[in-house]
């Protein structure tokens, strides 16, 4: 059972880490857009 939970946990950990990376990139880009608009 430990291997089963480890596999399911690892799957969602990988997806969540990727989603966080995408969200962070989006926030950074949004800041760049705001800076451009100010200029």
């Amino acid at each position, binding site marked *: 059972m430990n291997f*089963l939970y480890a596999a399911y946990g690892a*799957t969602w950990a*990988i*997806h969540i880490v990727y989603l966080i990376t995408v969200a962070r990139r*989006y926030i950074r880009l949004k800041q760049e857009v705001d800076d451009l608009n100010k200029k």
Partner: protein
Amino acid sequence: MKKAFPILGVLTAIFLSYALYLALVVAPREQTMGDVQRIFYYHVPSAWTAFLLFFINFLASVQYLVRRNPSTDKVANWILITVAAVTCIASVVIAVVPALKEAMPKDVQPSSIGTTGIIIAVAYFLIRKFFSVEAVDALAVTTAEVGVVFCTVVLVTGPLWARPVWGIWWTWDVRLTSTLVLWLIYVSYLILRRFSSSGQTPVMAAALAVFGALDVPLVYFSIWIFRTQHPQPVIGGGGSIDPRMMHVLLMNWLAFLCFAYLVCWSRYRLEIMKREVEEAQALESLLEPGSMAR
């Protein structure tokens, strides 16, 4: 579209939770392996989703290369139409000639050849209709990145399943090695896109993706062609599966497809936005006073 995204997100989350419930509770317990076999409901759908994303990446990369020149674009269109027609004719011929039918792998229907040809052509023309040349490049980056995420899941869940069942984490068997090579090819594709600043980067990346995609059929058919430790495919490869397990497997795949679609959608929007910002920054630096003098 902006309003649809949160609704689809909530629906996908509910669907994924239901699929998880099916995998952990509803699916019958496998007699030999026990509960650890339930890893199958995440491992296999992740692999199929990764293959699908790499297939879209392949079509997008081919289009990025051929659509930059109108004559190669026309040739590519005719090649696709010919592939669809030839595979349909081949499936009819194989079904009619008994000697050819016997030479086919067990459990593979001749019609699947024609169906594959038609799916390739339809997918190609759909991408062509809805994406411009620049957008097709953004689609290629998106599908490669999300495909690598799903392929990583396959490479992590595989050893976690192999350890209790085979007694080893990893073996250099053809299926496992070709999957690792596939992952490395697409990781190198993403590294190339991330760190190369040349104007030819999308062309080089598209060429790499076209050759990288050749590894996908090798991964898929390796367990038919070679003697491997990896189990036989559950669909069309001589393997058999309980219908209840098949139902849970397909539900999980559908849930992962919805999830992959949403992730691709977000990543694609991000890529388009990034390109627009880069364009605006380049324009701004040109318009800056004294930029010409520098």
